[in-house]
């Protein structure tokens, strides 16, 4: 319920911000229905619904407070399943770094390193197996995509660019 409440607050902020933005979209044609009308209508709808959702979440919270939070046991079950909550942030960080460096170090280096770290995060114990997973996955994708299907994969810059030319 707390998550629902927080999400509805985020949605209220989101829809209010973009409602203002929509109203500021330039009207080149002078028509009543301009480029900003459709998104503005959507944001009004989203704003109203998010307020309803927030009110419901707050109401539900009050009821829970009186009844003594019946969701406690369900939450405990959920926590049992997701035993490594930190890994969520770690994986997100790895993916964010991967996306950031992809353009600079190219597909080969970024993917070998990325898959190696991800395999360790997912629970592969042996470093060698994780590295092999990274190398084989990268090799497989290079054969399939840039070589066989002519997809222009990112090459990176400098030495990474030269390295990529050896393969695709």
């Amino acid at each position, binding site marked *: 319920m707390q998550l629902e409440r927080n*999400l509805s607050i985020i949605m209220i902020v989101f829809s209010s911000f973009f409602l203002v933005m929509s109203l500021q979209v330039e009207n080149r044609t002078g028509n009543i229905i301009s*480029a900003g009308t*459709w998104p503005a209508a959507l944001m009004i*709808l989203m704003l109203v619904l998010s307020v309803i959702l927030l009110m419901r979440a707050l109401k539900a919270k009050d009821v829970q407070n009186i009844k003594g939070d019946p969701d406690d046991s369900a939450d405990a079950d959920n926590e049992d399943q997701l*035993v490594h909550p930190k890994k*969520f942030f770690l*994986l997100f960080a790895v993916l964010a770094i991967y*996306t950031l460096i992809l353009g600079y170090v190219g597909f080969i280096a970024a993917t070998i390193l990325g898959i190696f770290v991800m395999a360790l995060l*997912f629970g592969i114990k042996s470093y060698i197996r994780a590295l092999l997973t990274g190398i084989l996955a990268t090799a497989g994708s290079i054969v399939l*995509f840039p070589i066989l299907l002519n997809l222009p994969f990112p090459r990176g810059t400098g030495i990474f660019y030269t390295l990529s030319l050896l393969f695709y």
Partner: protein
Amino acid sequence: MIEGLLGGFGNLFEPFNFFILMVGVLLGFIGGGIPGISGTMLVIILLPVSYAMDPAAAFLLLTSIYATSVFSGSISAILFRTPGTPEAVATVFDGYPMAKKGEGGKALGISIFSSATGGVFGTLVLIFLTPLLASFALSFSSPEYFALALMGLTVVASLSAGNLVKGFIGVSFGLFIATIGIDTMTGVPRFTFGSGQLMSGIDFIPVLIGLFAISEVLRRVQQVHKVNTKQKVSSELPNWNVMKRISGVIGRSSLLGVFIGILPGIGATTAAMLSYSEAARWSKRSKEFGTGIPEGVAAPESANNAAAMGAMVPLLSLGIPGSATTAILLGAFILHGIQPGPLMFSTQGSLIYTILMGLLVANLMILLIAKPFISIFSKILLVPYTVIGPLIILFCIVGTFAVRNSIFDVAMMLVFGIIGYYLENAKFPLAPIVLGVVLGPIAEDQFRRAMQMSNNDISIFFTRPIALAFIILSIISILYPFINKWIKKRRNQGGGTDQTVAS
């Protein structure tokens, strides 16, 4: 016509043509099965190769890839929650829960059966009803298209029954995402914040992969992964009882799929999504949809294959493509010096009938080849999730990157992965967001065009019979959950009073 079809059948079974058809079927399976390689992409890649062949072989190759890739997108959708092609996104909703319950083989079998049936039905419609159906779709104008898109949107929003508010928030969020970028009608940039990449908008593939696949991987990384037991996943074709159970759904979805496929610009993805929600709406088990039931796999799979064939109708009869892939096929025809259109039946009759018979056989091949193909393909399941997880992420990254060769899209996929993760934790239905993104451009463009047509008089939507019919259906579908709830409440109250009186 019969002579033409027999001639086409004869051409098809010439050894080289038949060999090419088989190659096309297999390539379509592989292409559709691997996330990141869509049927559209394969057709584009093989277009230059086909130029070297004679037209019959070239179009057998391209059209058989097109027909079979629509089916095989469901394999990874069912097994890994990653749709191999965008058309299979609705298959995830029930296919993956079935696989999670240990019914992966059953789900795959239902997908094979439904796809083949939908595809064959679509091809038969393509063969026999082309002129009639094309003329009906031709009478559609902007108000009708907007009303149709509106109906699609309200249908999925009401699908999230009980979570109607969340469903509509999802739809409006999806529709809003579709507005980002340069406005196609006036050229005004919207919500781009000066970013060049946002000018071309947010493609729906990163949204789709992020919401469904990345969010799942982000969840599973937090779990402890046990070593997979050597469970053999083989597809099992549905038995008589299941066939009987899903036959009505397949029939309705195939019809709906063909109809939507024929309408230009609304492709198999929308057909699958719409037929899924229609199946949920009319089913006695509507509350079980999303938990892993055969109807939830049968509906989108029969509809997307039927729609893929339906999209060929305007292409062959009028020279207007009904979807992205058929637009590429149109280019292929022109590349071979052939102009698709009404005259094609008289000038290229033999080629047309060969293509039609090829499509029929390719769809039947799904029944024969899919089973052994899946048993090889599903060996991937024996690999532990510690290896599969990073590989799924890799496929997601490559699949997203391949659409527009854009690292920005990969970043968008990640953003929507996080959004999907938190929304799912708060029990938000994700399908309405995807539907909003897919239908957004059609809904907005057609609405604005209709308003231009009528000088901003909104009555245009209520004075045209087809548009009015769609709008009435939309209103009914929005109000239906409320009316249903009210009736149940009244009934319960009535029951309660009776009991009190009786006691």
